[in-house]
């Protein structure tokens, strides 16, 4: 990367971007043209092709956030801090999308946008927890201390991911059971619907990765820019004394 880059893109991200766009187009075709309505869920099954992949990829990015947080505490490299921030942000966006699509699905299926179901409630709490994590990252103060605090919050927050994922089984939830990684995978979804779901996974993984790489680079550049500002301030302070040194030939106290 150049000293003063004007873009966060590279050949790799352009390829990733094009692949993301192509996979979204394939997903739209599969979701609306290839697959038909479900026997039980009707047309609303098409929401599943977005809802299930977004929540799975959100979990993945939140786990990545926890791993990067641990790595930051171990290695103390700002690389892991910035990576944790980027993965946390993408995780929150995807989880927000999951909640919105879930509510859109709930209205025709359950007759309400929101029901006080264990899976919905714990997912909303997980979302709020990561909003808290992002809030922690934006608080003013020493960047190193802030990074340590955020890393600890990231690790604690990850402890809720598994209970949220298992909540449909633990609390006999209204929400349907696990669609893909459950024990009754084949009974839950099959054929073109299953293919559409897997295309959804791929599409959202590519889009999320593309966004995460760009967000990481923005964060990295912001870090460097903050360093440059400090260096410039130090250089300016030194420069205030330099004319006096050269004209008098001695260092002023």
């Amino acid at each position, binding site marked *: 990367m150049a000293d003063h880059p004007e873009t966060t893109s590279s050949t790799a991200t352009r390829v990733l971007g094009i692949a993301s766009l192509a996979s979204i187009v394939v997903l739209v075709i599969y979701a609306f043209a290839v697959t038909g309505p479900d026997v039980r869920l009707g047309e609303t099954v098409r929401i599943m092709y977005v809802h299930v992949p977004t929540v799975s990829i959100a979990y993945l990015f939140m786990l990545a956030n926890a791993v990067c947080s641990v790595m930051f*505490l171990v290695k103390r490299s700002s690389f892991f801090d910035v990576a944790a921030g980027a993965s946390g942000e993408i995780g929150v966006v995807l989880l927000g999308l999951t909640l919105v699509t879930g509510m859109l699905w709930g209205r025709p299926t359950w007759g309400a946008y929101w029901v006080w179901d*264990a899976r919905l*409630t*714990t997912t909303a*709490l*997980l979302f*709020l*927890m990561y*909003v*808290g*994590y992002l*809030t*922690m990252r934006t*608080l*003013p*103060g020493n960047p*190193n*201390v802030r990074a*340590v*605090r955020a890393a*600890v*919050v990231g*690790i*604690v*927050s990850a*402890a*809720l991911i598994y*209970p949220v994922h298992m909540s449909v089984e*633990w*609390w006999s939830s209204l929400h349907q059971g696990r669609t893909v990684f459950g024990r009754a995978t084949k009974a839950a979804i099959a054929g073109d619907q299953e293919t559409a779901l897997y295309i959804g996974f791929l599409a959202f993984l590519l889009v999320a990765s593309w966004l995460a790489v760009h967000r990481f680079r923005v964060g990295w550049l912001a870090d460097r820019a903050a360093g440059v500002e400090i260096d410039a301030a130090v250089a300016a302070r030194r420069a205030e004394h330099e004319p006096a040194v050269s004209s008098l030939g001695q260092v002023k106290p």
Partner: protein
Amino acid sequence: MLRDAWLVLRRDLRLEWRTRTTVNQVVPFVLAIVLLFAFALDADSATLVRASAGLFWIAVLFAASMIVQRVASVDQRDGVGDALRMSGIDPAGAYIGRTLALSAQLVVTEAVLGLAIVAFYGIDLRGLGLLAVTGGLATLGIAAVGSIYGPLVAGIEGRETVLPLLFLPVQAPVLLAAARASEVALGRGVGSGWPWAAMLGMLAVIYLGIGVATASTLAEET
């Protein structure tokens, strides 16, 4: 480590004994919740009995949030936190001591709150063994998270608003498991309450593990 835990436990309990914050401020606060909740539900006794377990644990969470805020502000005042760091006390020991002190204050709050709910809502107490185990494990889990987040937000401007945002959502699994186990113990839930108690134990161990593992980092760098 245990010696340091004992020192910090004694310090926190002595501070509480001298200031009486839990007894004078937190306990009246949770009693106000009990009464206001009854007003909000139009004193419908059937609803109050049904909601009592969840309400109890919600009130405990609010109380815990208040106590953690206070401990964090005490540690910020007059360089107490710095003095603790300079004293050479093992951070993991300090964390355990803080957790036990917070647990003790919560147990006092829970005892008064429980008696108030039994008296005001007309609860028929039973399943005392399960209630005691649930109470102990849930309290430990709540205190374990509180003792991580208290020092973590201590130096932050606006910690009063940041702490509840971080602290309350992370307690969701504890709240759900504790409320379900308490409902079963009181004869209103379905199935056995012991798996919920086991889950509370698991959560307490996870949170305590994270707290001990990160105590040193937080003590040195926040």
